[in-house]
């Protein structure tokens, strides 16, 4: 790896009418780390996510991803460059099977066109077989292989979250961006998710994690970025951030000392 940072965000700003959703936010994500993004509701976490993944264009600032600027890239370009995301409110292809969902994730890394589809030459058939094989492996990896042929919408909530991660991994990302993957999960499911994130990280993936579950964030993330009212108020290791008076004030609105570990 020539450079240490996978993603550098420089002075990102985004305004929606009179609301300053993001103001001058800068941060860096290093190769191989799990990077947390936290903040109270409405702090701008999802806005930052949407700006990063090309759904919105930033008003100011730029992202450097893997050494190249990401300016003006559309969501599909961003995915092609190597940032795969999940959604806060799960956006699977509900009426397709779990396997098909992951197979669609392979689209961006495969080539077959109209003629391949019609002629079904050896290369296309081999590619199709590889897509299916890889999709199955990913389902096994996240632990929903048993339900490969069930419709996405019939999967249990926790499994849908995992399926979304499998679909994102199918695009062979360099950065996996997860938008509140533990939202709505019970304690057991969150524990399983934590193990999955650790596995993914151990296999060399860099992860950006937006999460409200502080216990999860503090236990898996190396460093965290804290946003409040669109501004960066802290970026450091978990231990430092959770004792930062500004962070505590943002979450609790006053000078209260609190041990976030128990939260």
């Amino acid at each position: 790896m020539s450079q240490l940072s996978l993603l550098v965000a420089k002075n990102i700003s985004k305004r929606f009418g009179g609301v300053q959703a993001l103001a001058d936010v800068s941060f860096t994500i290093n190769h191989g780390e799990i990077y947390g993004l936290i903040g109270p509701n409405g702090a701008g976490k999802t806005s930052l996510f949407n700006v990063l993944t090309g759904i919105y264009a930033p008003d100011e600032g730029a992202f450097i991803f893997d050494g190249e600027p990401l300016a003006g890239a559309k969501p599909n370009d961003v995915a092609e460059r190597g940032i795969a995301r999940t959604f806060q409110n799960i956006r699977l292809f509900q009426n397709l099977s779990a396997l098909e969902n992951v197979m669609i994730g392979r689209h961006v890394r495969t080539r077959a066109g109209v003629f391949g589809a019609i002629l079904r030459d050896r290369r296309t058939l081999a590619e199709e077989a590889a897509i299916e094989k890889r999709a199955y492996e990913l389902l096994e990896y996240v632990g929903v292989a048993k339900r490969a042929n069930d419709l996405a919408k019939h999967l249990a909530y926790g499994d849908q979250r995992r399926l979304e991660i499998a679909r994102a991994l199918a695009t062979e990302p360099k950065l996996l961006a997860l938008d509140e993957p533990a939202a709505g999960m019970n304690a057991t499911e969150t524990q399983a998710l934590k193990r999955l994130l650790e596995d993914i990280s151990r296999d060399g993936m860099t992860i950006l994690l937006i999460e409200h579950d502080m216990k999860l964030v503090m236990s898996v993330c190396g460093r965290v970025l804290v946003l409040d009212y669109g501004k960066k108020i802290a970026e450091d290791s978990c231990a430092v951030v959770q004792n930062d008076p500004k962070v505590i004030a943002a979450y609790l609105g006053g000078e209260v000392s609190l041990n976030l570990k128990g939260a």
Partner: protein
Amino acid sequence: MSARRRRKAIPSKAWAGVALVAVALALLPFVAALVGQAWVRILNFAMIYVMLALGLNIVVGFAGLLDLGYIAFYAVGAYVYALLASPHFGIHLPFWVILPLGSGLACIFGVLLGAPTLKLRGDYLAIVTLGFGEIVRIFLNNLNAPVNLTNGPQGINLIDPFHVGSFSFAKAETLAGIPFSGPQKYYYLLLLLTIAVIVINLRLQDSRLGRAWEAVREDEVAAKAMGINTRNIKLLAFAMGASFGGIAGGIFSATQEFVSPESFGLLESIIVLAMVVLGGMGNIPGVILGAVLLTLLPEVLRSTMEPLQNALFGRVLLDAETVRLLVFGIALVAIMLYRPAGLWPSAVRKRELEGAKAGS
């Protein structure tokens, strides 16, 4: 279509079924000829409509884009054939040159229509495509001045039938001891083309592109986030759909030996859409069923209503054409009430519709 199912070996029973259907299809024009040569012609029409409906199914069924101007591509294909194989310009190219040309030009028109409408969805897309269909028809109607391109409302006459060398598909002839009429010869050629179109559609559906279309239809935002270039994939749906329309148009031109702008009105677009919707959007067998039913049913009505009325009342009270539209309308309403996903729906589409109902 699950990819797993596809790779299973086909059981011998299924082969027996295929053989049976093949024999039935091979004998069909002779059975139809017993009732009258007109019925062979109707069968040929049914196959043209199957091709048209399958083309539209790519746009509406696979990619989920409502297109009310689809007939414009049919018109483009028909006029390309008419202009390049008739005394109008004195050009007489062989059909195997013109059909790909017509299909290619229709494909370009598909992209032309698709490009500016990509950001539109649902009702808005329907209105723009409807306008496009009308524009093409009105152009065909008026392009007889200052340069006479299309011969205006009079249409183009004396179009060459399909022929290979001296073998013409329009002439009655005895081949291998069996007498073939013109429409019967066309029937076999059309059957081959229709089967090719069906195979292409089945393969497209069960491919990387078919999945991408499905993804766009299900959730465009998620599809984009997965790296699918939704703009290109929608354009491709328009282009593919249009090229099948172009082929069907060329065949229509050749079998009718006459085209005029009148054949490409809004009603025609709606009928093809009705075939897709009635049969079952997104499901290829369903769409074929829809196309065949909606072509044959009016003809059956036409041939039975008048004798029936004559027998009952001694005269014709209701004109067959009027009854046709009435029955059409009733059938559409009934289907939408009782089988909203179509007669033979695709499993995925049915689930989408049920989901939408439950959600509203």
